[in-house]
Structures are given as C-alpha cells and as structure tokens.
C-alpha cells in the first residue's frame, strides 16, 4: 500500500531513484575494485564530484518541496545548507586536535592566530559526532521555524518572502565573514583531517561519504513523496493554488507552511553537512545570495513541482557547469542567466516537462495513425 503510494505511481521518480541506486552500487566497485589502468576505473576525483552533485540534488529537492508544492519561493535556501555545513565543519575542526599548524590541542588554528585563549561556548560539544549531527538538524530547523513563524504569521508571501529570505542569507554571509563571530571569518573552516576516525582523504572514506550522500538523497526523496502524497500534501498544493479557499475550508495555512519550511530547511542542512567533508572546506561564500539563486535555476530547469525533476535539474545544470567552467572559467554566469531566461520562456515545466510533452505528442500521433 505504502510502496504503491510512494513508488509505483511515480514512474519518473522510480527511474531517477533506480539510477541513483545503480550509481551507488557501480561507482564504489569501479573506484575500489577496478585497477587504475582499466578504462572502466572511476577516479576518486569523479567520485567526489558525483558526491557533491548528490548533495546539490538533495538541496534542490528541499527547495522543490516548498517552491514546487507550496509555492513558497525561498531565495535564501543556501543559508540552511551553509549552516548544516558549518555544523559539520565545526565537528571536523575539533577532530584535528593537536595536528593543526599551531599544535594547540583544543583551539582550531584560526583561533590561535587571533590570540584567543579559550574555546567560545558555542564550540563546545562539537568534538562529539552525535552532538554535531544533532546541530546539523536543529540549527537550520530552528532558524527556519523562527523565521517562518514570523513571516507566515504576518502573511508575507510571494515576492516579499523571496526578498526577505535573500536578505537573511546575505546578512548571515556578512556575519560569518567577521572574524569575531568565531567561525574562521573569510577563510572559513578547512584543513580537515578525519571524520569518525577515518582519514578524510582516503579513497574508502570518499566512497563512504558518496554512499552516505546517495542514501540520504534516496531517503529524503521517499520522505518528500510521503508528504506530498498524504492528505497534508494535498492541503499544501491547495494552499499554493487558492490560499484563502484553504483557509475558509478550516485549515490553519500558516502551520502547514511552517512545518514544510522547517522540514525543507533540515534537508538543506543535511545536504550541507554531507557536502563539506567531500569538498574539504566551508566558508561564508556558501551563504552568498548567488548560490541560492543558482539553486532556484536548478529546480526550474529540472521542472518544479515534480520531486525527481529537482534532482534531474541539479545534476544536469551542475554537470553543465563543470564542463563549461573547465573551458571558460569566468563566463559561467552568462550561460546560467541564459538558461534561466530560456527555461522561464520556453520550458515552464523544465526538462521533465519536455519529456512529458514529447511523450504526449508521440502518443497523439499514434492515435492519428490508427483512427
């Protein structure tokens, strides 16, 4: 019953989930078991790149849940991603111990450099993984709860909501740039050594992180499917289409928006936390409003309002970005902007919608052939 609801009625999603599962099985084998001389070998660089894409896809999924289904456009979702990333980064910093440049057993390098004598209170506890994991969920979740409660209660919607979320991430970026904040300022947190006792640069750890990202993405996808196919999911769609009708049907619209926003922020935080150990750095640049806008482009390109569309969008745009920036590193913003304009004008339902349209025209032409 539940599998039917979550999977079989969702062909595109099944296909995308199947591909992710396949990647999760093949990539570790091709990386670890196939010798480097073989043409089938997948380099560790490619594993990390794919792992990064998986985190982006999870972030895109989080945005699609609120934008595609509830019609809440957040232009600051990168903030939750970055907060999750910072929480993970703090754990990784504490794991360095006395192996840092300055060899201080307790203080991370940048604090020694700033002549700090003791660890700030908010850095306590981050030496334990369970505590960091809890913060990865709680910090984005609580911020989203407070922010959402204030915004939704005042019935801030549409473009105004988008603008204040943009302001939120910009404000956080400025704050995290400050050295006094105690998060490494401009340079952020980096130079990580190991995670849960495994060396962070080892191939096997890379594969582990890659698998964790893939599994997180698949589980998150199922959780989102569960939400959108439940009765609450239908209420959420109705809020998008006719908010006051929903309100006069007896639903407290604000609380639906709020819980969905919080869940989405938590997913974004988890994505950030998985991203940081793979790229090896987190700095305030992750809060940059531009990142959040790029994220919106991924979702729009893939097709908003279909959860798997967000995953398709995140992979295709980022793959395009990787290829493009190899040749013209500085010019990426132009194709990105062009892509957004084109998608908005020509493909309102994104790539996924294009496939759907193609199928439809094929089936109608078939009908014409055999009247």
């Amino acid at each position, binding site marked *: 019953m539940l599998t039917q609801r979550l999977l079989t009625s969702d062909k595109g999603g099944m296909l995308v989930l199947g591909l992710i599962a396949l990647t999760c099985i093949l990539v570790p084998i091709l990386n670890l078991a196939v010798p480097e001389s073989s043409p089938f070998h997948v380099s560790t660089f490619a594993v990390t790149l794919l792992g990064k894409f998986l985190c982006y896809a999870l972030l895109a999924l989080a945005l699609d849940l609120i934008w595609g289904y509830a019609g809440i456009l957040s232009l600051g979702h990168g903030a939750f991603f970055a907060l999750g990333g910072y929480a993970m980064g703090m754990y990784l910093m504490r794991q360095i111990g006395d192996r840092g440049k300055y060899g201080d057993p307790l203080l991370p390098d940048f604090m020694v450099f700033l002549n700090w004598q003791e660890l700030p209170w908010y850095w306590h506890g981050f030496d334990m993984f369970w505590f960091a994991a809890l913060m990865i969920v709680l910090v984005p979740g609580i911020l989203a709860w407070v922010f959402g409660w204030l915004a939704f209660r005042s019935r801030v919607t549409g473009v105004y909501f988008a603008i204040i979320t943009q302001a939120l991430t910009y404000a956080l970026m400025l704050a995290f740039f400050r050295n006094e904040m105690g998060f490494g300022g401009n340079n952020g947190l980096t130079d990580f050594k190991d995670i849960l006792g495994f060396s962070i640069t080892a191939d096997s750890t890379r594969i582990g992180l890659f698998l964790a990202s893939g599994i997180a993405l698949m589980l998150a996808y199922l959780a989102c499917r569960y939400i959108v196919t*439940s009765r609450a999911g239908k209420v959420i769609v109705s809020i998008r289409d006719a908010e006051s009708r929903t309100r*006069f049907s007896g639903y407290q619209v604000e609380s639906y928006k709020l819980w969905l926003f919080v869940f989405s922020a938590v997913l974004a935080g988890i994505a950030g936390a998985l991203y940081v150990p793979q790229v090896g750095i987190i700095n305030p640049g992750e809060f940059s409003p531009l990142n959040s806008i790029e994220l919106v482009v991924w979702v729009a390109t893939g097709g908003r309002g279909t959860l798997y569309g967000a995953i398709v969008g995140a992979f295709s745009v980022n793959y395009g970005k990787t290829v493009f920036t190899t040749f013209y590193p500085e010019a990426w913003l132009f194709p990105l902007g062009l892509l957004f304009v084109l998608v908005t004008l020509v493909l309102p339902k994104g790539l996924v919608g294009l496939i759907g349209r193609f199928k439809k025209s094929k089936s109608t032409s078939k009908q014409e052939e055999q009247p």
Partner: protein
Amino acid sequence: MNPFKHARNWSTKALPVKDPNFGHPLDTSHGPILYVEDVSVSFDGFKALNNLNLYIDEGELRCIIGPNGAGKTTMMDVITGKTKPDEGSIYFGQQINLRELSEHQIARGGIGRKFQKPTVFEALSVYENLELATAGNKKFWFTLTRELTGEQRDRIDEVLHTIGLAQSRFNSAGNLSHGQKQWLEIGMLLMQSPRVLLVDEPVAGMTGEETERTAELLTSLAGKHSVIVVEHDMAFVRSIARKVTVLHQGSVLAEGSMDQVQSDPKVVEVYLGE
C-alpha cells in the same frame, strides 16, 4: 428604535474561546443561529457597514440583495472573520463570539463560505477537492499520517450525488465547466457539515438550466442548514427566496418577502433612482 432588532439574550455568558470545539450543541433556543448586531466597518473613512443588524434563523434560506457597494461582501467578510468589525458584535448561536476567532476556526466551527468567483483547487480531482473540505481534524500532523475514515468516504459519495458530480469524481477540477465549479464549491462547503452557508453570487455567469439546478440545490439545502445567498439576479432571488433583506449603504434598508420588498418605496428609490 430598530424594527428588526430582537437582541441576543445578553444574560447568557459567552463561552471561553481558545480553540473552540464547536462539538457541543449550538444554543439556538432564541431562534436565530446568527446574530449580527450594530456592526460597523470602515475603510479609510468609507463606511462599508453602518450599524448593520441582521438575524438569521436556524434552517432559514435568506437572500440578501442591494446595489453595488451596499456592503454585501463586507458583511460576509465580517461573519467569516476575514475582516474585523470596528464596532458591534457577531454571535454564532447564543454563546460563541465570532469576533474573537480567526478564519480557520470559524470555518471549522460550522460557517462555510462560497466565494463570488468559483475557487476550487484546480490541480486536484473533484474527489480530492471534497476530501480536503471534509470536516474533521485539520492539523498538519494529523493529515500527514492519517487516511480518511470509511464514514468520511461515504459522506463524500453522498455529497457527490447531491451536487450532481458523481460521474466526474476523478476529473481534474480545473477542467470542470463554470457551473460545475460552482456546485463543487458548494459541495466543499457541505463537506464541512456547516450550520450556516454563505453563498456569494452563486449563479453569476450560469446558463438558464444551470441556474435552475442551482436554485433546486440551494432550496434543498435549506432546512438542514441556514443558507445566506447574496445575489444580483432578481429572477433567481424571486425563485428561491422566502425572506429577502435589502442592504443599502452598509445597513438594512428593508426586510420581508420579495413582494413586500419590491413594493417598498425606499427600495424602489434606491434601485431606480429618484
């Protein structure tokens, strides 16, 4: 002073309202189910409602007419909690003060509203539209984890038949005709098991046949529910109304049967000019 006034019994205490569980029987022992008394609302100095007094009896079908700007829609906004009145009181039964409640609480409590423009959830099917409107626990965590009960499904089927959309239950609501959307919206109100139905211009833009069916539908609902219809179409009002209230400049100008009202010189003056 006011000939229409037969005030709520003020010795009855108002119920405390947190999340009003309107589950207990509504006290309508004095006749009316809805009391709107001395209500005034102004927007930037314009008095949309001016000392409005209106009493709706249980099971009554009441038509409200009036020229543009008479305050008909504002009156609905005030009853459903969308607009808070500047003055006056609005009671649901003897004990429930609607001024203190928000829209979703009033809706859950049993006052349903149909908008002027048909608003159904176009992305969902007819069945899902009714499913959403079903009375019951409407908290997020509840709707996330629970399915409908068999009883609620039966109720949906019943309403599908009442509004004549049983054949198109799986159709997308966005593909319905204008008239069908109006009926679906009335059906959604019925799913809330409301005590009072507020219906704003139900036959605007309908064909003659559709209008007739709507008239039948609304008349059949009266008795089980109190129905308040705001309408411009005089022929339609004549065909369903037993009692008509004429609003003008935010207050009641006349009240009575259609014939009485139409022969009232004040009403004639307002509608035809001097």
